């Protein structure tokens, strides 16, 4: 095992995730002590291109798992398959030990598996607050006949609104509550989408490039929010290209290339893995994956095991 360090003042969620993952093998498809999501033989082909071909993968509950890989590795496609937005050619997967292959995406969202999109889907001609309210689950007022009787849903609506305001404040969007979502900047839309997904109180939140387009000053606080999500007990699976960020917040990293999972492990170990560096930078490289040089270069394969 490579020396993965635990910050002495790490919060309990981080400690728990670290401890749980400490004895997990750094091998693609390795078994986790308490997986929330387990996928087997999931494949998806586009014409002649095998976009996703994942033999086995497990996502640890309560941890922040990063899914990384070069452009076109199949990360978004895997998200789409797991959340039911796309149909695989083959494969089975479970969520909380329940078979969910073929389940409609809205049902998965209700079960607690919520995702965001790489190409942000803010509902432009609705206000930021309406975007947020839409996220709340189990709303009486969303039923056709009950909607005509405001007294049946006013209280629930007020409670949802309060929760929405709290979340918006966390994501620095509280000044935008009554603006149309379409008037937000690209980065703000990313934030709104994440906040909206959290309105569903998910068990696992799957974020597709949550930091893309968010300015560096805000990134730090956003990282803090994602860590907080874990501290509150929600599992986070996210796709990200910025290795510094991945290094900073993830408990575990899964690497995809050409549709397959090629490596897994704690961030330090993965970033030293020569296979990973090869996949990212090509076979001849002399650069580190992170700016602080966390990934050493030209590490011979096997060193990390």
């Amino acid at each position, binding site marked *: 095992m490579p020396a993965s360090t635990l910050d002495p003042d790490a919060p309990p969620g981080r400690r728990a995730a670290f401890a749980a993952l400490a004895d997990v093998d750094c091998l693609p498809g390795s078994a986790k002590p308490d997986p929330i999501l387990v996928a087997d033989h999931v494949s998806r082909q586009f014409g002649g291109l095998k976009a996703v071909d994942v033999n086995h993968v497990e996502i640890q509950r309560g941890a922040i798992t990063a899914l990384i890989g070069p452009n076109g590795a199949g990360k978004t496609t895997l998200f789409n398959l797991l*959340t039911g*937005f796309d149909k695989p050619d083959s494969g089975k997967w479970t969520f909380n030990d329940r078979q969910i292959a073929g389940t*409609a*995406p*809205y*049902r998965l*969202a*209700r079960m607690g598996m*919520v*995702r*965001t*999109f790489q190409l*942000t*889907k*803010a*509902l*432009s*001609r*609705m206000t930021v607050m*309406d975007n947020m*309210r*839409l*996220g709340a*689950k189990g*709303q*009486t*007022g*969303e*039923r*056709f006949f009950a*909607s*005509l009787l*405001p007294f049946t*849903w006013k209280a629930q*609506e007020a409670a949802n609104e309060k929760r929405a305001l709290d979340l918006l404040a966390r994501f620095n969007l509280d000044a935008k509550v009554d603006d*149309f979502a*379409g*008037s937000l900047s690209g980065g703000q839309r990313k934030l709104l*989408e994440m906040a*909206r*997904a959290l*309105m*569903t109180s998910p068990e696992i939140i799957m974020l597709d490039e949550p930091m893309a387009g968010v300015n560096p000053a805000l990134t730090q606080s956003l990282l803090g929010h994602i860590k907080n999500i874990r501290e509150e007990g929600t599992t986070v699976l996210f796709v990200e290209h910025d290795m510094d960020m991945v290094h900073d917040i993830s408990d575990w990293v899964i690497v995809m290339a050409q549709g397959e999972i090629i490596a897994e492990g704690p961030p330090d170990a993965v970033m030293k893995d020569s296979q990973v560096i090869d996949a990212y930078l090509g076979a001849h490289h002399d650069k580190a994956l992170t700016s602080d040089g966390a990934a050493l270069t030209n590490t011979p394969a096997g060193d990390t095991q």
Partner: protein
Amino acid sequence: MDFSIILSQTLTQAIGITAIIYCLAAIGLNVQFGYTGLLNFGQVAFVAAGAYAVGVIVFTFDLSLWLAILVGVVAATLLALLLGIPTLRLRADYLAIVTIAASELLRLLVRSIAFKDIFGGAQGLNGKLGQQFHDLNPLPIDFQPLPILTWTRQDIWVVIVGWLLVALFTLLVWGLVRSPWGRVVKGIREDEDAVVSLGKNVFVYKMQALVLGGIIGAFGGIVWAVAKQSVQPDTFQPDFTFFVYTILLLGGAARVFGPIVGTIIFWFLLTGIGEVLSQAINAGYIDFLSSTDVGSIRFILMGLGLMLLMIFRPQGIFGDRKELALDAR
């Protein structure tokens, strides 16, 4: 030129029976297209379903008008399910193609010789379709029609009840769209996948909107059959649907009062232009046109007007420019 005739004709049309029929169809379309984003290009089929329900039940089977209204609602619901089940899970344009095809198919079906005994073929069904309704007319028998509006006592009764229906459905739509239900359908209009990702069964909401809009449209057909005491297949051409879209865009889609404002302006302008032109031609002010051209000229001018509106005020009369200016990225 006789302006009192122009005014009286124009006003009569702008708030008359035809306007009510179009207005109901537009309220229905507003639920489907304006709020939910469903491209229903066959709204006329729902209107026809309502009208033919009255024709068939009252005329062909000689049963009660009240039963006919119920049948009209059921027919519109079934039609919406039939059109929606195969298409609402697919991309938006599928519904558009299927609805426009279905509306023509239905028209050809009811005018066919094969079903002449039921639907009356090309002549349609003509008789005392709305008698049971007109028997309830509370206006005194010697009621003097209003001086400027050229309605009969019977027309006025239809107009009163018709606008009450419009008010009722407008209230219903208002109640729905300000609720969380309305928020979901507006979300679907903006981005279906986002709404799915938040755990909403989008298919059910789209179906509810299609059914509700269809039922409101069917009431337009019911008013039609009752007021005109006849249903004829060729009045239910696809252009009806396009006029309803024009009305909706004029008034502003996704506005509760859009259909009402749009209808009144549409019929006011269409009739007004027609009347002014005919009178100008008859009086010899315009000699390069004949009075038979007026029918098409007024539509050309309407089209031109609609183009100008879309250029300078794309949100419609009531719409919110700020809202429309947002790009839907």
